[in-house]
C-alpha cells in the first residue's frame, strides 16, 4: 500500500498532463502551470528540511568537537546572521544584508567560477594528446576554435575566425543535435517508465 499510493498518483498526474497538452480549454489548459506552481510551493517548504539537516549535522559536529568543527561554527553563524539581517532589515540597497551579499557572496561565487579557467587549462594539457587519428582531429579542431574565437587568431590568419565559426556551426551543431534528439527520446521513454510504474526506484522501493 505504501508503494501503491504514490504510483497511482504518478500515473494519474502523468496521464492528465499528457492529455492536457492537447486540450487547450479549461481546466486542462492551465494544468501544467498549476502543477509547476504546486511543485514550487512544495520545494520552498522542503527548504526547511534542508536547513534542518544542515543544523543537525553541523550541530552534532560542534558538540562532539570532531575534526574541523570550527568551520561548522562559521557555517552556522553565517546562516543565522544572513537570515536575521535579511528578515530584520530587508534586502534593499544600503542594508547590512545587501552589503554582505555584494562584498562576500559575489566575490566568493565569482572566484569559484573563475577556477574554471585554471581547470580548463590543466584538463586540456592532460587530455589533448595525439594518441589516435580521432584524438588528433579533436586537437586540431580545439586549437582552431580556441584561436579563432579570440582576436589573436585573426592576426595570425584572417580566415581563422571563419574556419572556427564553420566548425561551431556545422560539425558541432550536427553532433549537438544528434545528442539532443537522443536525450529527448530518453526523457520520453524514462517518463513513460515512471508514469506506467515500471521504473519506481526513485520512490525508494525495489523492483517489486
Amino acid at each position, binding site marked *: 500500500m505504501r508503494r501503491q499510493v504514490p504510483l497511482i498518483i504518478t500515473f494519474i498526474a502523468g496521464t492528465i498532463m499528457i492529455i492536457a497538452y492537447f486540450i487547450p480549454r479549461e481546466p486542462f489548459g492551465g494544468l*501544467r*502551470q498549476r502543477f*509547476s*506552481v504546486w511543485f*514550487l510551493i512544495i520545494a520552498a517548504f522542503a527548504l526547511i528540511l534542508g536547513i534542518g539537516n544542515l543544523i543537525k549535522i553541523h550541530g552534532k559536529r560542534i558538540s562532539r568537537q570532531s575534526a574541523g568543527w570550527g568551520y561548522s561554527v562559521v557555517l552556522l553563524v553565517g546562516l543565522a546572521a544572513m537570515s536575521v539581517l535579511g528578515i530584520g532589515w530587508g534586502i534593499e*540597497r544600503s542594508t547590512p544584508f545587501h552589503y554582505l551579499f555584494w562584498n562576500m*557572496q*559575489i566575490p566568493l*561565487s*565569482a572566484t*569559484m*567560477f*573563475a577556477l*574554471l*579557467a*585554471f581547470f*580548463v*587549462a*590543466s584538463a*586540456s*594539457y*592532460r587530455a*589533448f*594528446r*595525439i594518441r589516435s587519428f580521432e584524438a588528433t582531429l579533436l*586537437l586540431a579542431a*580545439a*586549437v582552431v576554435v*580556441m*584561436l579563432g*574565437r*579570440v*582576436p*589573436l587568431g*585573426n*592576426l595570425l590568419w584572417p580566415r581563422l*575566425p571563419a574556419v572556427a*565559426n564553420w566548425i*561551431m*556551426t556545422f560539425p*558541432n*551543431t550536427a553532433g*549537438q*543535435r544528434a545528442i*539532443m534528439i537522443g536525450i529527448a527520446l530518453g526523457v520520453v521513454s524514462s517518463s513513460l517508465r515512471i508514469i506506467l510504474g515500471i521504473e519506481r526506484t526513485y520512490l525508494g522501493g525495489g523492483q517489486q
Partner: protein
Amino acid sequence: MSAIEKLRNIDRRFIFIAIALAVIVPLLFPIGLPVTVSPSVQKLYDAIEELPPGSKVLMSFDYGTSTMPEVYPMNLAVAQHCFSRDLKVVGTVLWPEGVSLGQNALEIAAEKYGKVYGTDYVNLGYKVGGMVVIQAIGRDIREIFPEDFRGTPIEELPIMEGVRNFDRFRLVVTFSAGDPGVREWVMIAQARYHKKVGAGCTAVSAPAFYPYLDTGQLVGLLGGMKGAAEYEKLLQSQGPATAGMDAQSVAHAVIICFILFGNLVMLITKRKTERRSL
C-alpha cells in the same frame, strides 16, 4: 624520475600560475588586439537595428553574480544599443541576483542616452518559477508582474500602457547563464508565441544554442566575453568586454602552448621507450 618524466607529470600549479599571469598582465598592460564580428553577433545587432523607434523590447536578466563578468558586458552593450535606437526596454528577471545586475546595466545605458525610468525602460523584478513565469507573461503579464521591482503598480508606468502579453514586444532578448534561460525563452516566447528571441550567454553554454540559431529560433547569439566585445565593436564603443579580450587571447595562446608542449613531451617519451625496447 627523469626530467622528461617530471615534465610529463607537471605539477598543475605551474599551469595555474601561467594562466594567472596570462590573464593579469594583459589586463594591466593592454595590447589592443583587433576584434572581428561573427555572423551570430551581427544578426542580433541587425535585428535591433531593424526595429522602428518606439518598439518595445523585452529584456530578461537571467544570470547571477558568478557569471556577471561574462554576461554583464553584453547586457550593457545591448541595452545601450536599444536606447540609442529609441527603443523601449521592459526588463524581467528569472534569477534572483539578476535584479540589481540588470538594473545597473539599464541605469548606466539610460543615463548615457537621457532615458527616463518608467517611460523608456522599466525593471519588473524577479519572479520565481522559470518557465512558468514566461508562460504567465504569454497569458497576462500583469498577473505575474503586478508591479515593478520598486513596488510601483504596473498601471502607473507609462511604458506598460497597453502591454498585456508578448503581443506588444517586437523582440525578446535574454541574458542567461543557465537554467532557466535561453532554452525556456525559445520554448515559450519563440515556439509558442512566435516572437523573435535573441540571446546572450556564457561562452561555455553557447555551443548548445547554435542549433537554435541555425533553425531561426534565435535571431542572434552573443557567446561569452567575445560576443560582448564584438557587439561593443559594432556599437563603436570601448566597453568592459573589449578590455578583457586581450587577456582572453593570451590565455588561449598559453593553453595551446601547454597542449603542444604536452604532446611534445609525450612524443619524446614514446620515442625513448621505443628505443629502449629495441
